[in-house]
């Protein structure tokens, strides 16, 4: 039994999923976002053009096209590899080398539980009570790396480890600005960890499970027959609190005091050069994409397309589909819907960076402890009352 459960093919398949999810979705979108999101989108908000000069001249036919500036991130990667790696005098060499790894590790590992589409059913699908029931076939986990029953708990645990990356980076640099940035980031991240968890406790009470795939399946229900019960409709306050808390966790503007940009040079990653800086920046962008994916999963219906179930579109509560669709098309539509929702939250985060001025540090702490924490506790109490009484 154990033999077949952990056969070589099984491990090879897990490795393939890791490669596809991390290397083909999380990392490319994360690094493309350093270009398309941070530079091109910012430039379009600010009435300028953004980077458009890098050319892929080794590919014939593309030598003259600007390609929306995408070759710039390849050029940036090459530049980072060839730069000199400087470790400041008196810095703790071991921790200075480890800090980028500590920042990148949680950002990538936490992608293991995000479901890109529903579990694959090898038999036929019958839709009952707004769920796909798999008849005479077995359910295979093709679309998330690990279908953990404690998926959300895993996410919280791993993202709490990400505090270490910034703190150690700031301390190990033996510089005033880095230390200031590291301390600020530690305080900010652990403050918003609390309200992040508590705001999701309301969603947990309603869904009754920590399994992220089950949460998305539960969002397929139609309220009053026509309104898809996405998380944002049944927990709107938790959506705002969670989005703001996650933006504070990833130190994304307007909570970007630890990076400081105009105040303390670059905050905790001032003294990191070449590839270490690229790794830290990449970890920040991958975490930002992950925030988009998590918000899409819990609050925006994940891979659910409204009214789409395993065998086609059902408008209303009928067991037969009004527009039947082949199964592979349903899967493609679901993956596409997930990607669109993730990209929308990502776009929103980049817009908020240029919309809101940076918060002052006492305002950040005030918001985290005196406003978000009581609000998320109140949200939890009200949700629990409603669930018990109804």
């Amino acid at each position, binding site marked *: 039994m154990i033999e077949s459960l952990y056969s070589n093919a099984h491990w090879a398949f897990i490795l393939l999923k890791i490669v596809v999810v991390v290397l083909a979705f999380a990392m490319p979108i994360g690094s493309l976002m350093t270009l398309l999101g941070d530079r091109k*989108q910012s430039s*379009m*908000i*600010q*009435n*300028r*053009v953004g980077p458009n000069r890098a050319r892929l001249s080794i590919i014939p036919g593309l030598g003259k096209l600007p390609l929306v500036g995408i070759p710039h991130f390849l050029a940036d990667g090459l530049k980072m590899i060839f730069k000199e790696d400087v470790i400041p005098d008196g810095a703790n060499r071991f921790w200075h080398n480890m800090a980028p790894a500590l920042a990148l590790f949680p950002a990538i590992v936490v992608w293991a539980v995000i479901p890109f589409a529903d579990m694959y059913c090898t038999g036929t699908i019958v839709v009952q009570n707004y769920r796909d029931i798999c008849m005479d076939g077995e359910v295979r986990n093709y679309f998330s790396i690990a279908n953990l029953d404690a998926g959300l708990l895993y996410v919280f645990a791993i993202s709490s480890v990400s505090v270490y990356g910034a703190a150690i980076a700031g301390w190990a640099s033996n510089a005033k600005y880095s230390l200031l940035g590291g301390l600020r980031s530690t305080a900010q991240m652990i403050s918003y960890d609390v309200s992040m968890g508590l705001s999701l406790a309301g969603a947990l009470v309603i869904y009754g499970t920590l399994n992220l795939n089950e949460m998305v399946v539960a969002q397929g229900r139609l309220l009053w027959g026509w309104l898809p019960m996405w998380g944002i409709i049944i927990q709107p306050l938790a959506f*705002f609190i969670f989005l703001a808390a996650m933006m504070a966790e990833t130190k994304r503007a307007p909570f970007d005091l630890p990076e400081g940009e105009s105040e303390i040079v670059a905050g905790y990653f001032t003294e990191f050069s070449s590839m270490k800086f690229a790794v830290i920046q990449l970890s920040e962008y991958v975490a930002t994409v992950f925030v988009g994916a998590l918000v899409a999963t819990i609050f925006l219906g994940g891979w659910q397309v409204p009214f789409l179930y395993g065998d086609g579109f059902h408008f209303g509560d009928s067991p037969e589909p009004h527009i039947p669709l082949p199964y592979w098309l349903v899967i493609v539509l679901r993956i596409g819907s997930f990607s669109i929702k993730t990209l929308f939250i990502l776009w929103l985060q980049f*817009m*908020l960076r*240029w*919309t*809101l001025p940076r918060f002052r540090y006492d305002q950040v702490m005030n918001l985290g402890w005196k406003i978000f924490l009581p609000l998320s506790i109140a949200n939890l109490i009200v949700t629990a009352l409603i669930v018990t009484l109804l």
Partner: protein
Amino acid sequence: MAVTVRQVERPQRSLWVQSYVPEVVRGLSITSKQFFRNLFTKKDVVTIQYPEVQRDYPERYRGIHRLMYREDGQVRCVACMCCSTVCPANCIHIVAAEHDDPSIEKYPASFVIDELRCIVCGLCVEACPCDAIRMDSGIHAHPFYERDQAFFDKNALLELGGPSIAVQGGQNKGHHGSHH
């Protein structure tokens, strides 16, 4: 001397305003409007694509030097050393040689300007009595890969140059500051 104190009331903010949500929505509408406007039309974008599109320089813009020549094609410069003496950056190097024509006593055998050292002050143009050197070429000094590429010698300077109809002594002063 009594100090007058005036109490200024802080504006009362309602809970809705203080929750920052309407401000965020208003700000997002402004940035989104600019984003979608620049995504589909390019009306508001003020960037020019240099070097394909260049801005116009002013009329008296001082660029790379050029040596002017007489009607018969010889260089107008008589190697009087006025420009190299007045140059604050010591970037003009002239080696004089004797000219066969006795009314033109000297000519520069070698005339080298180090464009990297030049501070673009225009004093050499003002000092020259012969309208031999001008800075109205309208070309600014481009970046160089090697330092010795910045040493413009006589041939390079003459290439940019043009004929001048100024006459030694005062008649037909020529057109200072215009392109030919």
